[in-house]
Every structure is written in C-alpha cells, then in structure tokens.
C-alpha cells in the first residue's frame, strides 16, 4: 500500500515534465505523410477498380507503384538519420476537461526502431505485391482488385502500427492488420475452410487486442498519456502514480504480452496462424511470415521500458517464446502440407524472437525479425510458385525432383537459400541472428534460462531437420508430381487442360522477386558486420538502430541494460560449457544445424524408406505411439480450445437464450403480463348474473371494506378513530 500523501508530495516536488517540443523536434517534412498515404491512395484506387470491374492488371501496378514510393520515402527517411521525431498529421481523439485530457492524434513517432521495421515492411510489401501481380493472374477481373486493395489496406494499417505516435495509433494499426489479414485469408470466400480460417484469425487476434486495449487503459490511468514521447518522459522522471494500488505498473507488461502473443502467434494463442495458410500464398508470405506477425515483437520492443518495470514479466516472455518454438517445431516435423510446415516454422521462429526479448536482447530479436522476414518470405513465395504451378498441390509426398523440371530451377534454388537461412547454416543471415538470441539465453540470469537455452538449441536442430525435409522431398529426388485438386481464383480450372496436367512454371515477375528476396535473405547477414557506431554494443547496424530507440535498454551492452546495471557495463558475460557464450554458440549452432540437415538428407533424400520405417516403428510401440499421432494432430490444441472455450461459451449462449426466452421473457415478463388476467379469472365468478348474488356480494363487500378499514386504521393510527 502506497502512502498517497507521500506520493503526492513526491509528485508535487518533482520537476514538471519537459515539454515535448524540446525533446523531439516536430518537423514538418511534408513528404513523410506520403509513406502512409500511398497505400491508402492505392486502397481507394483498387476499390474503384473493383467497383468498375476493371479487367486488367491495373490494380497490381497501382499497388506496386505506390508501395514502391512508400519504400523509397522510407529509405530517404533512414538516410536522413534524424533523431526521434514526431510528425503530426491531424487530430483524432481529443477529450479535454478541467484538469486533464485524453489525446490521441494521427501522428508519427519516428525513431530508428520505426525505420528498421518500416524498411522491410514497405520493401517486402512492394516486392511481394509485384510477385502477386503474376500469382493472382487467373483472378484478373474477378477478385484481383479486391486482393490488391487488401494488400494496400494491410500496408496502410501496418504503417500506422509501426509509425504511430501513440498507443492508440498502434492499436489502430494492430486491429487494422488483423482486419486486412481477415480480408485476405478469406480471399477465397467460397471455400468454407478459408472463411473459417479468416474468422478464427480475427477472433483469436481479438483476444490479444483485448489485452492491448486493457494495457492502454491501464497505461493511460497510470501515466496520463499514451504518447510515446510523453510516456518516456514520465517514466524517466518517475512522476507517475500507480493508480490502482501497486499492481498497475506490474500488470501492464502482462497485458501487452497477451496482445503480442495473439498477434505473433505464441502460446497459447498461436492456433490461428496455421489455418491462416488458407489465404493466397503472397499473403502468407507478406502478412503471416514477414511483417504482421512480427508486430508483437515490435510492440514489446517499443514498450520495453515498461517490461523492465516488472522484470519477471520478461521471464514469462522468454519461457513462452522458448516453449512455443519447441512445440511448433515438433508439429512442423510431422506435417505434410508444405505451407503448414512453414507456418509452424514461422511460429517457431517467432518463439525465438520472444525468447530473445525475454532474455534481454531486443537487438537479437529485432535482428531475427529482420532476417526472418526475408528468408521466410522466400520460402513462402517458392511455396506459392509451386502451388501456382501444380494447381494447388502442397503435399510434399506428391511432388518430387522439382529442381530438375524445366523452368523450376530458380524456384528450387531460392528455396534452398531460404532453407539454409532458416536452418541457421553457418554464415547465412539466420545463423547470426539466431546466435544473437541463443547466446544471450546463457548470458542473462533468469529462472531456468540455461535449460531454455538448451531447449532452443534442440529446437534449432529440429528446425534444420524439418526445413530440409521439405527441400529434399520437393526439390530433390526423382522427378514426379501429382496435380492438386484445388484451383485458385474463384473457380477457374487452371492447369488441367483436357485431362493431362502440365505444371506451368513461374514467369518473369515471380522469378525476379524470388531472386531479389533471396539475395536479400543472404545479404541480411551483412548488417551484422557494418555499423556499430555505438560503443559497448556488438551486433552491427541493427544493434545501432535498436540502441537509438525506446528499446535501447534491451540491447546488451547498453549502460542501462539490466545485466549491465547489475554487474557493471563490462561484466555481463555468462558462460556456456565454460566458454564465452557468443563464441561457443557459433560452433554449437553450426553443429546442431549441420546435424539436422544431415538427418533430413538421410531420411528424405537418400533413404526415404527409412523415414516411413521410423514412423511405423514409432507407431508400433505402445510407449511411443502417441508421439507421431500427437504431432501430426498438432498436439490436439485446437480440440482442447474447442472443448474448453468454444463449446462452453456456445453452451452458455444456448442456456442464456433459453433463459432469455423462457425465464426472463416467458416467466417474468409474460408471466407478469398474465397476472392481471389470472386475477380477473378469480373474480369472474362473482359476475354470475344472479341478482341476489350481486346484492349479497355488494353488502358483503361493504362489510369487508369496513373491516379492512378498521384493520388499516389499527395499522396506521393505532386504533384512534377520528
């Protein structure tokens, strides 16, 4: 219990907060707004195209063009290298009253973290839109414009999320991307699975949004503002008052966590992401792999100071991340649908990122977000190309030897690059970014962090295995394929020309995008070696970017990094097997990755029958039978949710409806309404038509009234007549 008066005295004495204008220069760079407006304009134009039933690729070009402009502007912003900056666009919600106000304007808050995120969001957005211009070709004139409108809407929302100046802008983007995701997952709206998946995504995300909303309420109650710059000022000055006893500050990180776990598909809210693969593949690549799902990481990075107020919350983040990574990897191992495997892999990699956040390396998490965006995009896009070419076939048992087919070389080799990165093959981008996280798990002190570290290493092994399981099955081996039975587009019959199936290989747009992004995936290792303008901080350009932002305290080596604060700036190194974790980790993860890769090559390329044999061996043992079954059935998490959340609520719905109809309406309302009638029936026999009966009743009634009068008189006046 905080002594309120003391607190008040402290607050009154505290320095008034520094006006915002002194910390941040509110510049009027007129073109900054266009980063946001471009997708919006594109959205409107695509909408118009849809309304006018444009039968050309116009919407795609509009989108690609406008996203490209956004990207260029973002780069411009990055090169200007400005200090944190606020750009106000227009007023949104302002409630002022005597003694306070609630302000949330449409404004940008631009620091290096923003730019880091914006760079890959807009860049990949433009590229994937280009890819989709070809991928969605069969739908020209039908859903084409709708699709690109969705992409534009997504980018608009994502930019709001990343660039927003306050938590409400973030919330706008947060729900906006959720909606865009709903829109695009449900793109094939005639497919019940797609509709269900879209719905599930939106609803599960809403649960996360609930956490964000509550966090915003709590932050505003405690700090009196939701603008980042002011929040940081108040936080630094320590002039906030935990309104609700002392739990308000402690609760903020947990609520934010709920939001982040929803959006970034972590335990226990990850279930929507695999289903979201019902959407067109470019959507999976852009939204459900590269950008949107990293919003949770962004949120925690952005609000890192709040997590540091309650450091235990970070331990939770770490554990949830680690467990999710492991769980998703085990499920991914046992799936046959390529896209699903990559979906689980995304969940798993996101788990790494949260692990990174939890073990106090925002830089590691951010770097992994950055690299993951590229290589996972590549993987999904190659998936898309396969799907596009094989009429929706995604079962890795049904396609083989892709790299030897005509026109599929670029696809299979870019996929190989993506797989290498994902598996953390030495010297690829994924290798460095994963190391930054894994090593820090051994450095940071926390409950069971070492176990967590080893778990993550084991997960890395699984990752390498399932990644190359896909590649070996699909791209290598004998040449064989069966077309899928699904058609994309509304209901056109692409690919099946008169019974004989010809896979159609990707053309220019898809190939060029694949090459560009694959190059990006490889080059994403470069920032690790460049930059480092800041002292004490290793990790290159990304570390610099994070260091200049609100998440700076999570960068190892930062003077206010909790570990540094504890042990001094230099002495934050822990150890793994008696070595410096960062050094050791290079070797360990290289070995582990290599092992996984070899296992995959063995089971799925060289001796494919061994894989089946292993499976049937596992199935035949009573003690191990559950393992493959459970893994293939995704550990029955969906079923558990259905049984423990959805079904009870549904039941409650029915019970309440019954209560509403029969008890509240039937018994109380209609029953009350029936009372007068019932009463009337009691009195009706008096009206029997007999003259003398009336006379008796009248006289009797008179006597009754007289008696009643006496009784009431007794009651009211105690019997005194007058």
């Amino acid at each position: 219990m905080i002594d309120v008066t003391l607190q008040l005295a402290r607050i009154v004495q505290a320095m008034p907060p520094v006006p915002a204008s002194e910390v941040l220069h509110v510049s009027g760079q007129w073109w900054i707004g266009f980063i946001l407006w471009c997708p919006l304009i594109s959205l409107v134009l695509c909408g118009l195209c849809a309304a006018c039933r444009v039968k050309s690729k116009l919407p795609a070009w509009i989108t690609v063009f406008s996203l490209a402009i956004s990207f260029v502007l973002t780069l411009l912003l990055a090169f200007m290298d400005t200090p944190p900056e606020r750009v106000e666009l227009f007023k949104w919600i302002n409630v002022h009253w005597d003694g306070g106000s609630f302000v949330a304007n449409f404004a940008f808050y631009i620091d290096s973290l923003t730019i880091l995120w914006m760079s890959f969001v807009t860049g990949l957005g433009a590229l994937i839109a280009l890819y989709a211009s070809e991928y969605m070709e069969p739908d020209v004139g039908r859903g084409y414009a709708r699709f690109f409108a969705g992409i534009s809407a997504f980018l608009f929302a994502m930019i709001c999320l990343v660039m927003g100046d306050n938590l409400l802008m973030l919330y706008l983007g947060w729900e906006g991307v959720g909606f865009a995701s709903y829109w695009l997952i449900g793109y094939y709206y005639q497919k019940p699975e797609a509709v269900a998946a879209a719905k599930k995504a939106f609803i599960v995300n809403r649960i996360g949004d609930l956490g964000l909303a509550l966090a915003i309420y709590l932050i505003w109650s405690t700090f009196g503002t939701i603008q980042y710059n002011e929040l940081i000022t108040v936080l630094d000055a320590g002039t906030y008052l935990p309104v609700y006893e002392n739990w308000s500050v402690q609760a903020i990180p947990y609520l934010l966590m709920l939001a982040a776990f929803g959006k970034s598909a972590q335990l226990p809210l990850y279930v929507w992401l695999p289903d979201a693969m019902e959407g067109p593949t470019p959507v999976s690549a852009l939204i459900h792999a590269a950008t949107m799902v990293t919003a949770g990481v962004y949120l925690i990075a952005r609000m890192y100071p709040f997590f540091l107020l309650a450091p235990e919350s970070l331990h939770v983040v770490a554990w949830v991340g680690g467990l999710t990574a492991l769980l998703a990897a085990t499920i991914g191992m046992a799936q046959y649908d390529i896209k699903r495997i990559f979906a689980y892999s995304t969940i798993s990699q996101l788990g790494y990122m949260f692990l990174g956040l939890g073990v106090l390396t925002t830089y590691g998490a951010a770097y992994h977000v950055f690299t993951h965006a590229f290589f996972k995009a590549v993987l999904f896009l190659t998936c898309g190309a396969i799907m596009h070419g094989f009429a929706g076939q995604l079962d890795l048992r049904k396609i083989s030897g892709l790299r030897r087919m005509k026109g599929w070389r670029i696809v299979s080799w870019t996929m190989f690059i993506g797989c290498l990165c994902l598996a953390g093959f030495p010297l690829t981008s994924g290798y460095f970014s994963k190391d930054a996280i894994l090593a820090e798990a051994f450095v940071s002190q926390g409950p069971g962090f070492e176990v967590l570290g080893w778990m993550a290493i084991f997960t890395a092994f699984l990752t390498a295995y399932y990644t190359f399981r896909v590649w070996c099955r699909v791209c290598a081996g004998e040449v064989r394929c069966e077309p899928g039975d699904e058609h994309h587009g509304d209901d056109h019959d692409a690919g099946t020309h008169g019974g004989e199936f010809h896979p159609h290989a990707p053309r220019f747009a898809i190939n060029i995008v694949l090459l560009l992004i694959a190059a990006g995936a490889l080059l994403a290792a470069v920032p690790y070696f460049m930059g480092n303008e800041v002292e004490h901080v290793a990790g290159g350009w990304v570390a610099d970017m994070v260091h200049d932002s609100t998440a700076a305290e999570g960068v190892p080596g930062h003077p206010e990094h909790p570990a540094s604060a504890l042990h001094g700036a230099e002495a934050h190194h822990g150890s793994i097997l008696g070595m410096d974790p960062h050094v050791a980790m290079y070797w360990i993860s290289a070995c582990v990755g290599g092992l996984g890769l070899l296992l995959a090559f063995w089971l799925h390329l060289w001796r494919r029958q061994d894989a089946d044999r292993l499976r049937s061996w596992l199935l035949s043992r009573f003690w191990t039978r559950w393992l493959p079954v459970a893994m293939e059935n995704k550990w029955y998490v969906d079923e558990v949710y259905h049984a423990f959340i959805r079904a009870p609520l549904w039941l409650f719905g029915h019970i309440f409806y019954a209560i509403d109809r029969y008890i509240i309406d039937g018994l109380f309302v209609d029953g009350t309404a029936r009372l007068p009638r019932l009463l009337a029936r009691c009195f009706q026999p008096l009206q029997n038509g007999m003259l003398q009966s009336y006379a008796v009743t009248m006289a009797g009634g008179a006597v009754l009234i007289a008696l009643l009068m006496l009784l009431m008189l007794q009651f009211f006046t105690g019997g005194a007549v007058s």
Partner: protein
Amino acid sequence: MSWLLILLPLLGSFVIIVSPGRLAKQLALVTSLVVLGVSVAAAFVFDGWGRGTWELTSSVEWVKEWGLVLQVGADSVSLILVLLTTFLMPLAILGSFNAIKSRTKEYYGWLLGLQAAMTGVFLAQDLVLFYVCFEFTLVPMFFIIAIWGSKNRAHASVKFLIYTFTGSLITLAGFLTLAWSYAQANGGDWSFEISALTNHAVSALSLHEQAWLLLALLIGFGVKVPLFPVHTWLPLAHTEAPTAGSVVLAGVLLKLGTYGLYRFVLPMCPEAVVEWAPFVAILSIIGILYAALICWVQTDVKKLIAYSSVSHLGFCVLGLFALNPMGVEGSILYMINHGLSTGALFFLIGMMYERYHTRDMGELGGLARTMPIWATFMVFFVLASVGLPGLNGFVSEFLCLIATFTAGGSGAYPGVLGPWYAAIAALGMVLAAMYLLIMVGKVVFGPTKATLRHDEQSGLPVDLTVREITVLVPLAVGCIVLGIQPDLIIDNTATAVADTLAVYQDIFEESMPGAAAFVDTSLPGGAR
C-alpha cells in the same frame, strides 16, 4: 426554428394523409429532406457549439395553473441527436420505397409523425413536453410494427408498446413527484422546466429521495435503452418490424433512453448516481456479455443484430455511469455511431430479405458472389459495429471503456467503477467479433447455396439498385468521418458535458480530497 423542426414533419404527415396515395413516398422524401435542410441550417445558426448554452429557444405559455410552458431549445448534445434523427429519416423513407406496398399513405405519415416526436424529445426543455413526445414515439412505432411487420407482428407491437408504456408511466410518477417537491419549495408555484427542476433536485433532495427518483427514472429509461433484464421486448420488436422501423428503432428510439439518462438521471440525482452507479454498471455489463452470447446462437440474422443492440447499448450506459468526460463523450458518440452502423445493418438485412424472403442463416450463404456490392457494405458495417479502429464504433467503445477503467476512485481519476468493470465489459469486444463474424461467415461468405432463389417478383435486381446504394453511402460516409474525426462531436459537446458533470466533481472532491489536483501538475495529459 426548433418549432419548425417539430412541426414540419407533422405538417408533412398531414399533407401525405390528405394527398393521393401514389404521391406519398415522394412527398415523404421531400418533407424529410426539407427537414434535414432545416436542421442543417439550424446547426449553422446554432450558437452553442462548444459552449454549454441552450440556443434556438422558444416558449409558449400553456396552462398557467400547472406551470405548463411549452419550451423548446437545443444544447449541443440535443442538436447532434436531432441531426442524427433528421439524417436517418430520409434514408429510412428512401429505404422503404420498395418494401412498403400497402397503405403507403399511412406508413409515411406515421414515419414523419415519429420523426416529429423524436425531434420533440431532443428539443424539449419542458418536462411535460418531453414526456408527451417520449410517449408519443410509441404510437407510430406501434402502428409501423403492427401493420407492416412480419408474421408475429401483433404480439410484438403490443408487447413493445405496453412494456415501454409501463416503464415510462413510472418515470412520469417520478417526474411528478419531483415537480411537486419543487412546487412545495416554491410556495405552490408549479414548474416543469427541466433546468429549474434539475437545480431543485440537486440542491433540495436528500440522498434517499434522489435514490427513489433514480429508480423511477431508471425504470422508464432502462426499458427504453434497453438495459438487462428489461430488454426482452427489443429482439421481438426488431425482428417483426419492417426495415425502416428497425432502423429508426435502433437508430434513434433506443437513444431516447440513453438521452434520458444523460439529460435527467445524471444531472438530477448525482448523489444517488454515485451510490448506485456500480449497480447500473453491473447490469450493463451483464447485458453486454449475456446478449453477446445469445447473439452467438441466433439463426435469424435480424434477431442477432437486435440482440447485438442490447449488447452495444450496454457500453453506452456504462460510459455514462463512468461519470467522467471521456465516458460521457464516448457515450454520446456511441449513440450516434450505433445509429449509423446498426441502422445500416438493418437496412442491409432488409434489402436481402426483400430478395430472398428469408433471414435464416441456415438457408443463406455465399451472398458475396451474387451480391458483391451488398456484401461489401455488409462487411463494412459489420466492421464498424465490431469496432474496427478508423471506423466510428471504435472511438466510442474505446472512450466508454477507458473511462470505466479509470473511474476507479483512488487518486487521479475519480469515479465509482474501475478496472474490473472495464476488463469484464471488454470481453464483449471479443464476443462481438465472434458473433458478427460468424454471421458474416455464414451469410456473406461460404459456398452459395443452391436452394437460395432470388425472388423475381420483388422487382429488384440481384444486386443493389442505385436507390439502395444511395441509402447506404451516406451511412458509410458517416461511419468513416466519425471514425477519423470524432472531434467533430467531442469538441462541440465538451462544455455541455463538463457542465453536466460539474456536480460530480464537487461530490468526488468532497469524498476524495485532492483527487483532481493531481492531474494538473504532474502528468503531461494534465498539462495542457
């Protein structure tokens, strides 16, 4: 001008009754457009924007012995609600052009009569005039449901009328008791002027008396809102009412209840409100969750939307009883927003019903394919209703909830609710997404049902006509504009709301000294 707003629709209604039937709809549309014009003009000459004053006032002496003076006038809040009414009415009329084929004269006559009554409620400055208009709204609605409704219309209309009539009679008794108390204090001079009675109620009534007054008012307005557990007339009435009836019912009539809470309950019995706000809040929260879960298991689309109104209005009441400016502003916004988005949803369902003659989700499906324009609007308004940021529903819901959350009582933001109220109510957000998206998934998306036949006799094309689009576009524009510029309403009503809440500041300051001062000095939010 205020009188013009009330009397013009009445005049129009009269003209329609005496003119030939085939002109009825055109006449009605023209009248409502003229009224819209007048209301817009009124908004321009209105001087009370951003100030708490009553403008456009005018009064007519009536019965001196009872102190009956017919007084009208508008402050910013009422004028905004009047604008909502005049804005929705042409759309409601335009939306019924095809649906109403029998007894058109009476139909449009009643609609305009309804408009007059609703406008009267918002403009009344005199309790008796308020009550008369408040009650009279029931009559046109009763006829509209009973004559042009669907199968179970007789039961629905009678239930609607008697339920709300009963509630408001008790409110009337409360009003009269208050007026009597005023008369006693003023040497037997009766007055029904709202401001005079409000001042009297605040200054002269004891906590006990205020509590009784609160109860009386709450019964009448609570039925109208409708608050759980007196909501059961609403789903029935909505389901049976013709489209325009549902639109006006959801759009404006329910707002009479919340307006009543805002105009009478909050200012008249502040001490009792402070005492009982948690109770009302709990009722609203139960309503939010309970109705949302019921929505989930509905098969009739219209009934679903009807129950969703119960759920949504719960937020509105919650905001009011947060007793701080954010909540009340949020609540006022909610009144408007719910009118726009739910009104539009009822329009959309009506348009679909005219074509397919079913509202059963089991029979509908995949309408996005056959009616893409309709489907687009449907999804849009569902999102507005769900509270997607950027659209209107979000702002109001957010403000109501954050206000409830912060109204915790210890320290900076005084109030009697608190985080738990908001946290539980916020579950309604999740549930809203659930039931609305399930509905959309079943009706708009999915495979097109082969059994679904478009009725050729309806005289309507498969997708929406220009007329129908004309009905929906203004609503959609409204949703977007209020979604990104809620300040249009917030700024303009801020002072009026502050005046209403001033009395609470005193109460809280008494019970929690030093509470408000804290915000001024220390927080950036308080610094401006």
